[in-house]
């Protein structure tokens, strides 16, 4: 984590090192208004000048939303846009604790089955609708309507038994069984005006779909830009924000600039004020230049890792898996590919996660050429072919990775090529990296015909651990190692059924030691991050607390 602060040039993002106790405290009615006194103190160091209202900001972004409906959009990279317009019941501080937003308080019953939310009484959507309990219930029920949201019923709401508007300001949710990640889901569901569900274009989203945010979505030009204007009536910022009341900026434009060199050039020539998405090799020009600020934040969830196919091929042998990772000097590879701008990953969880990251794994494996060769000899890969690759029974030791083209970003193709060179040179492994379209990659996965599968994911709060390590038919949607080990399910179930963070961490730590070190099911490479580079006249940019993706423009202001 210190690597992050060392290379950050602009305002730093730091999360308090200490963990707050539990995410929600059982049976206690947590009236959270008390927390609203001030934003996370250590978060924004600089920006001491007095904010000034007014002005228009232009922000160059890499990814265009497929849909502007915040409830249906699953693209992490476009959340920073939609955040300006759509809001949620609770905000999370960096330590994972919840603070009020559109809900002024919430309560979880002793048995962790009943969740009660008390709403603020002054919140309205841009279309004039009031945010009341009925509106929240409508939003939740619509997620279960397969015509509106085909995925809703299968997600965390599958644990929901009933949702009721007890009175004008109180929403009561009853679960069928305990489910720890439920509060995060309900607390972070972006709410839209109930009237919006009747619009023909509700699934496509856009200016018709009203939210409660500090900015009103006014115009969308597909392939070009998304425009917002200030919501003058806004007065319900969460405690995690740096100010209260209306936003500083009068208007806001996001330009879609998918090419990184074009984005960078647009910022340097002053045609846009802020950009996100800076390649590692280009970061220095903003870090070392007083005309710009440069910030980064590691993503949440799981690092970019190689998941070994444990069901078929050479990687079903643990010795081969261990040999592969021992054959790589990953620090050197990352340094050369990313000019030292990326953080190495060691565990199954992002180093950004203060609760569940298992720091004790750091430095305990890898970069041991002799061990790699010894393991492969033991595994019977003792022959050598004319190209210098190891063989067994005349068959070459080939491990194939089908890199899905739409997910090749952040020079990940180069990264895998560098690893390819290392495992060949150090251990005679043929790491065959093929960049293919997503259909081909999906097909190889369906047929279990691959050696490794590369992936990163950003769901926080242990959800990603479940996705990767539960059996595929029990919620392990991206169980890319094809592991069905019952031991993993035992740990994960125990973690799922308690809301005590420390107890969950125990289970997750045990799991990480097992899947990374003992069994070498996966080989974590680096932790993806988000970057924000801005002209020095722009103040108040940053990352959303806890979730870490770039924050919207509510706190942003321009110096004259």
């Amino acid at each position, binding site marked *: 984590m210190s690597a992050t602060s060392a290379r950050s040039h602009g305002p730093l993002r730091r999360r308090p090192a200490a963990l707050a106790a539990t995410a929600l405290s059982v049976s206690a009615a947590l009236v959270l208004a008390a927390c609203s006194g001030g934003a996370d103190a250590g978060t924004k160091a600089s920006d001491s000048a007095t904010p000034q209202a007014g002005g228009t900001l232009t922000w160059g972004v890499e990814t265009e939303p497929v849909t502007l409906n915040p409830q249906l959009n699953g693209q992490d990279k476009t959340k920073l846009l939609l955040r300006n317009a759509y809001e949620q019941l609770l905000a999370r501080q960096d330590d994972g604790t919840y603070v009020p937003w559109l809900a002024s308080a919430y309560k979880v019953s002793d048995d962790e089955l009943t969740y009660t939310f008390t709403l603020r009484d002054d919140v309205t959507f841009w279309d004039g609708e009031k945010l009341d309990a009925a509106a929240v219930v409508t939003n939740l029920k619509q997620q279960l309507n397969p*015509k509106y949201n085909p*995925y809703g*019923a*299968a997600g965390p709401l599958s644990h929901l038994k009933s949702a009721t508007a007890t009175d004008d300001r109180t929403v009561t949710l009853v679960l069928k069984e305990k489910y720890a990640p439920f509060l995060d889901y309900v607390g972070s569901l972006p709410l839209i005006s109930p009237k919006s569900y009747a619009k023909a274009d509700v699934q496509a989203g856009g200016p018709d779909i009203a939210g409660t945010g500090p900015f009103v979505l006014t115009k969308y030009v597909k392939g070009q830009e998304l425009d917002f204007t200030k919501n003058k009536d806004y007065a319900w910022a969460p405690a995690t924000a740096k100010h209260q009341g209306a936003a500083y900026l009068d208007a806001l434009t996001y330009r879609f600039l998918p090419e990184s060199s*074009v984005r960078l050039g647009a910022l340097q020539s002053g045609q846009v004020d802020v950009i996100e998405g800076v390649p590692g090799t280009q970061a220095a020009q903003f870090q070392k230049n007083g005309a710009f600020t440069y910030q980064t934040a590691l993503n949440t969830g799981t690092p970019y890792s190689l998941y070994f196919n444990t069901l078929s091929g050479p990687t079903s042998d643990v010795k081969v898996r261990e040999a592969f990772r021992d054959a790589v000097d990953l620090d050197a590879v990352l340094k050369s590919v990313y000019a030292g701008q990326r953080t190495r990953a060691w565990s199954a969880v992002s180093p950004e996660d203060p609760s569940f990251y298992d720091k004790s794994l750091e430095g305990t494996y890898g970069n041991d050429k002799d061990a790699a060769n010894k393991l492969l000899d033991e595994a019977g890969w003792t022959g050598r072919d004319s190209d210098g690759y190891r063989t067994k029974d005349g068959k070459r030791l080939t491990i194939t990775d089908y890199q899905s083209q739409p997910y090749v970003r952040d020079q990940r193709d180069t990264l895998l090529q560098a690893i390819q060179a290392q495992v060949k040179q150090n251990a005679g492994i043929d790491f065959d990296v093929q960049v293919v379209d997503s259909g081909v990659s*999906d097909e190889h996965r369906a047929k279990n015909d691959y050696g490794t599968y590369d992936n990163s994911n950003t769901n926080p709060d242990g959800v990603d651990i479940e996705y990767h390590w539960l059996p595929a038919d029990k919620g392990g*949607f991206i169980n890319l190692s094809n592991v069905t080990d019952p031991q993993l399910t035992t740990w994960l179930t125990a973690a799922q059924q308690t809301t005590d963070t420390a107890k969950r961490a125990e289970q997750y730590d045990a799991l990480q030691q097992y899947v990374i070190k003992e069994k070498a099911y996966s080989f974590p490479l680096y932790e993806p991050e988000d970057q924000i580079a801005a002209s020095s006249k722009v103040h108040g940019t940053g990352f959303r607390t806890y979730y870490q993706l770039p924050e919207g423009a509510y706190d942003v202001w321009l110096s004259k």
Partner: protein
Amino acid sequence: MTSATLTTAPAGDAAAAAREAAPTVPGARGRAWAPTLAAVGRRLVGAVVVLWASVTVAFVALQLAPGSSIDALVPPTQRTPEAVAAVTAEWGLDRPVVQQYVDYLVRLLHGDLGTSYQLHRPVTDVIVSELGPTLQLAAAGLAVALVLAVLLAVSTAGRPWASRIANGIELTIVSVPEFWLGIVLLFVFSFSLGWFPVAGANGIASLVLPATALGLGLVGLVSQVLREGVERSLEQPYALSVRARGVSETALRVRHSLRHASLPVVTLLGWLVGGLLGGVIIVEQVFGRPGIGVVALQAAQGRDLPVVLGVALLSALVYVVVNTVVDLLALVIDPRLRTGAGHDRRARDHGRAAVVGHGRPPGRGPAAGARSPPPDAALGRAARVRGARAAPAGRRVPRAVRLARAA
């Protein structure tokens, strides 16, 4: 439009040929419309076949491509059996493929292109809203290509050194990918000089760089073909007589040679439009412009079948329209083509030779290359260029044409 041009045409200088091809019958005046109507009818039937074929090929290609629409539509972390079932039912993907195809065609006949899987909007809306910026870009790109090509060709034809230099420049530009060209233009004229905005479709200024990037990629080929044509026509006896009248060299080139040289270029338009359609995808991406190219790219990546089919249909329609325009333009440029329904094979072959532009029909006056190819022989002008493969070996083919073929 077609009929007007065709009926007035035989009155021109090739009336003799027309008589030869269609022997005069008493009362033929009333029936003069018949061949024209037949030509129009053939053209319409051809258009429908082209549209149907393009949709079908796109449909089959998407079915044969690895992976499934469901995989593209349902995010991996939400791929429960329930979610997959809901999405499958929502888009009717549980129907047999043949039925999906027939249903699509039936809806198509009613003018319904379906709804985008990804965007949740009617495909017609998506295409209509994105068409404007793309047409602007394509038209501007074509204009850049033609203007630059004419300037290059007319000023350098028949001047060995200038020709050689221009040739080198043209081949260099032809070999540069539009992507890279776009980035270089942006760095020089937008990021460094600040003359033009980086992105978007906000007026003329934002069109200059993308249109230049798009057009430059096509200049090379057009000017090579044009220069050959101008050079050839400058060798004709008529050029000598024009010069003898004291007409200036520039006027000779612009007023006379250009007209002769432009016919092969017009027949290249089909190819050019193909280049434009491919180019806009890249150029829109680099310059952050809205348009069909961006939509097509996203749809192909996300296996958004209705949008892919809609774009395929649109592209086919553009080809049909362009080829019709090309044929009409050819009639306007070269009066010798307006000879009506002469279907003799020899004439057709001469027409091809003239289009390829490197052979003189035997036994004819030097400039009489393109005598009476029938109007519908011009169908599929792009294929005409490919027809040049059959041209006898040893004839000079512009290098850019060869490059284009190799690609």
